């Protein structure tokens, strides 16, 4: 197994069509490809029984198998019975009197996760022997399990609980003493391990070794003393450790951030995107009563497989910060209502001489917002730009571009080429008095060569943001906006995949989705009506911005659509 981190890439040429074979799962015929690409290397591997069962929509219980990891075959929960098409001495299939091919049943069961299918194979997932084996395996797993479900974070998401209900015996036959192991192991800065809960499936080990390339975890000791541990003297501390919490089938690995915060069945789940870099990992936001409790990765093989980085995952607390901008403010920090404010602003913009306005938008804004700002800029003859946010990339997911929508800023024509190259020109023009009105969305321009003194020269400074900063404090009009978790929209990630996100929680106070009030502002300023719904707005944008040609909000689905870039 290669140690190099790897994710499927979309750009590989389409492989040659794979030969199909027919197998039966519990009597149901399905056709599956003879080989299936390895989730890590992309190399074709023989299609396995569990993949055929998935294709037949027959559930095979499993603990150690994970479709994105190399197969381990250690939990034995997926054992099934099977038969293969009998072959005679002449190497031809043996036929029954009715012409069907004769099946010779294997005397031994096989693990579905690792056993290749063969043409004509019959897989039986529901026989008495299979049921008995599952019961037996479950019973064994429970022997050393602490059964502390009432205080376990995994409760509700635990495969041990789930399968015990579905496949278990009602009582354990063993009363023998449990082997005691460490209950609270500090594996690294973000992860706590309960070795007694661990069922030694090795998913976490394989993930960190084979997906991340950090061989940090392993098992020590033999037999029932098997214990999961970090490499002696080493911390489990790469930027992907929290994914192990997701894939741990029981509650052995817990996130220090989420531990004991909330019982999972209270959480509302919303499909969204991570905004911490240009990769645009698909996520689920877990929220309750307008509070975000966690991000979890959401599977999208074109983008992030099933993973996300720790830094992105933990970057949600700002959403609920107490100092969020929640008050709409007019000149002199006066209180003002939305319609009055938008009216005053549009009056000012209408009066402004063409070319006397500049617009700095953030590449953290959505395609729709940037598109609307672009329309405004055209009307005003405004110089525009957005702000690069460089960082360091890693080999797995994290992109050097820490803006979630740099490509959107480029495709909607907001950003200069290269991004940020107009910023000094705008500063210069303010200084020379040519620019008298500045519109800023989501950036602190005092950090971008526009000192408070310089901004003081402006006639009008219109700012929309989420959190307070030096620029928002100088604004003549301050329009509180929304975190992405509080609105809907789309981003175009680094490889050109246009992806939607949904609203999880309500914005605070006066804050409104930017696209909503921009729509009004444009109507006031230009007389052009747009769409008052995100669906309509997106479709309108798709009609006007060439890069988004042929896209539709509905067509994006949950996993987005790639555009040529």
């Amino acid at each position: 197994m290669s140690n190099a981190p790897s994710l499927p890439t979309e750009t590989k040429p389409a492989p040659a069509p794979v030969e199909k074979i027919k197998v039966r799962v519990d009597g149901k015929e399905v056709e599956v490809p003879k080989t299936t690409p390895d989730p890590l290397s992309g190399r074709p591997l023989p299609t396995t029984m569990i993949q055929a069962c998935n294709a037949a929509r027959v559930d095979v219980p499993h603990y150690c198998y994970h479709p994105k990891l190399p197969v381990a075959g250690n939990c034995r929960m997926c054992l099934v019975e099977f038969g293969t098409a009998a072959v005679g001495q002449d190497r031809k299939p043996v036929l029954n009197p009715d012409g069907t091919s004769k099946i010779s049943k294997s005397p031994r069961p096989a693990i579905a996760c690792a056993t290749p299918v063969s043409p004509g194979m019959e897989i039986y997932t529901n026989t008495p022997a299979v049921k008995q084996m599952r019961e037996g395996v479950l019973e064994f797993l429970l022997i050393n399990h602490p059964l502390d479900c009432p205080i376990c974070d995994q409760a509700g998401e635990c495969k041990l609980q789930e399968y015990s209900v579905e496949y278990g015996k009602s009582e354990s036959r063993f009363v023998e003493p449990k082997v005691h192991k460490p209950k609270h192991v500090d594996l690294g800065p973000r992860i706590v391990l309960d070795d007694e809960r661990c069922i030694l499936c090795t998913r976490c080990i394989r993930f960190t070794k084979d997906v991340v390339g950090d061989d940090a975890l392993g098992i020590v000791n033999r037999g029932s003393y098997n214990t999961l541990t970090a490499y002696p003297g080493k911390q489990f501390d790469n930027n992907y450790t929290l994914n192990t919490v997701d894939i741990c089938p029981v509650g052995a690995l817990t996130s220090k951030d989420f531990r004991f915060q909330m019982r999972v069945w209270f959480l509302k789940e919303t499909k969204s995107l991570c905004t911490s870099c240009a990769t645009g990992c698909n996520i689920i936001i877990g929220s309750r009563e307008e509070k975000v409790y966690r991000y979890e990765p959401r599977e999208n093989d074109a983008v992030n497989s099933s993973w996300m980085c720790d830094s992105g995952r933990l970057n949600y607390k700002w959403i609920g910060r107490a100092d969020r901008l929640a008050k709409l403010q007019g000149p002199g920090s006066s209180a003002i209502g939305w319609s009055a404010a938008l009216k005053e602003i549009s009056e000012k913009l209408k009066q402004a001489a063409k070319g006397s306005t500049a617009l700095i938008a953030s590449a953290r804004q959505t395609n729709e917002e940037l598109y609307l700002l672009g329309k405004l800029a055209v009307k005003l003859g405004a110089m525009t730009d957005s702000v690069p946010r460089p960082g360091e990339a890693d080999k797995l997911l994290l992109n050097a571009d820490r803006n979630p929508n740099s490509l959107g800023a480029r495709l909607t024509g907001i950003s200069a080429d290269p991004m940020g190259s107009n910023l000094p020109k705008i500063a210069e023009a303010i200084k020379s008095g040519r620019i008298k009105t500045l519109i800023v969305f989501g950036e602190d321009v005092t950090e971008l060569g526009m000192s408070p003194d310089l901004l003081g020269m402006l006639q009008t400074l219109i700012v929309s943001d989420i959190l307070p900063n030096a620029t928002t404090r100088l604004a003549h009009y301050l329009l509180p906006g929304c975190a992405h978790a509080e609105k809907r929209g789309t981003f175009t990630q680094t490889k050109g995949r246009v992806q939607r996100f949904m609203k999880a929680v309500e914005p605070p106070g006066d804050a409104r989705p930017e696209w909503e009030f921009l729509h009004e502002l444009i109507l006031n300023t230009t007389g052009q009506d747009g769409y008052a719904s995100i669906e309509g707005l997106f479709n309108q944008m798709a009609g006007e911005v060439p890069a988004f040609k042929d896209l539709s909000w509905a067509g994006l689905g949950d996993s987005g659509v790639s555009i040529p870039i």
Partner: protein
Amino acid sequence: MVIDDLTEIADKERAARKRYTIRCCMAAGCMSSNSKGVKEALEDAVNQAGLQQMVEVRGVGCMKLCCQGPLVQIDSATAGATFALESNEVGPLYQKVTPEDANSLVSTLKGGQTPVQRGDPRHPFFSAQLSIVLANSGFIDPERIESYITAEGYQALHDVLRELTPKDLIERIIKSGLRGRGGAGYPTGLKWATVGKAASQQKYVICNADEGDPGAFMDRSVLESDPHSVLEGMAIAAYAVGANQGFIYVRAEYPLAIARLHAAIKQAKKYGLLGSGIFESPFNFNIDLRIGAGAFVCGEETALMASVEGKRGTPRPRPPFPAESGLYNSPTLINNVETFANVAPIVRKGAEWFAGIGTEKSKGTKVFALAGKITNTGLIEVPMGTALRKIVEEMGGGAPDGGKIKAVQTGGPSGGCIPAEELDTPVDYDSLTKLGSIMGSGGMIVMDETTKMVDVARFFMEFCMDESCGKCVPCRAGTAQMHQLLNKILAGNATTRDLQKLEELCYMVKNTSLCGLGQTAPNPVLSTLRFFRKEYTDLLMPDAFGPRPNAVNGTGHAAAGRNLAPTEGVPSSGK
């Protein structure tokens, strides 16, 4: 190196042979009772007697009757013969020799007398043996390659490189009927053919010398007594399958075998019998040693390969089989020590000769380590199909002190106990499997009437529990549970329900474990239950909820376990 060089070495050895050869066992068994001291004392005695010109004191490998060691045997030469075995002039065998005996032993060469106890080389223990693998053992000096060459060593390698295509060679091995000696008895030629067919630039040959069965020492003896026979077998196999790198995985508990292998590899390289362009052919082959770290499971082929790669030695599911994707994901041939040791003789003497020995489905000989409650413990090599009775009663001399043999255990922790009533069973792969045991690697432990079968079962279960790698759930948890139940039965605290549970667990663990260790761990329990059920039920206490112990009859396993019972006699050693 060309063939003439081999002949020259052998001729020189023969010419240098002295009138008498005192062979002194220098294998681990005798060395543990100071045979090194004996050999030094013999050398001194020869010098003192001024007989250096006439007498060679030679350290040799295992002389088989280990229980009587240190063993010393004195041969007299006829012209031209290098070894006693070439000239049929095997002299007296002296047993339990001490350094103090040296002078009197040497004096016998000049008509003197010695009080040292003599063994009978014509006793069935020796005369019923048929040596192929152990042919050189006890005769050649394992630390000198010249000694091996003189016994036709490396002739076979030369011949295959000159005269046989890999395909013909594999055909010959298939025809010989040789099956793997590591336990499962997979046909060796077929395995070679599969590896040979695999398309890959890089292939490996591995010799499995992990020998972990308690009480087994066949492989150790071969390595200590005749290391070059294994190297030559590996080189021939490498040529057959197209490999250029070999590894010998030998357990660290065999320091003498390791030292002799190191020396043997070094000598073979020096002579160009390993390395590049062997016998001036395009064939290259190197061998390196890898030392195990004391885990029984590392004898399992996939765990062994993980260990060679420097990883934790745990098995992985097959397919893919090592023959397709083994060491470093390359096609890999893995065979047992004894399997490799059979190869050169087959090449030299022909597939027909080999196939003429043994039974229809089990060809050749098998080496056993005879141990336990038996008069003659030691190493024996017998034709496949030899009756168990002949081995334990005639060769082994029966139970000591007039005891009565109760059972014979074969196959170690993966095997079973064969009761005295079945002693007429021929020892071959299929007959043993039929009796619920296995051939295994060759451990043979004899038990007499004093042996408690439940205790035996617990001993092996404890071994499996301790050696379970813990990777898969059934073996990790099941061996511990079965061990606890056996303890409970032995303590007299168990009921019929516990016994029923034990049987259910046996089938469960057998059918669901990942590797051969777990799949065969229940065998000793199942086989003792099959033949000695009463010893279990006698230990049970009356059960308030279930039938009384005497209600349990021997008709097989409990109803709930039936679904898991194999539908036919599958040799489930996972090989």
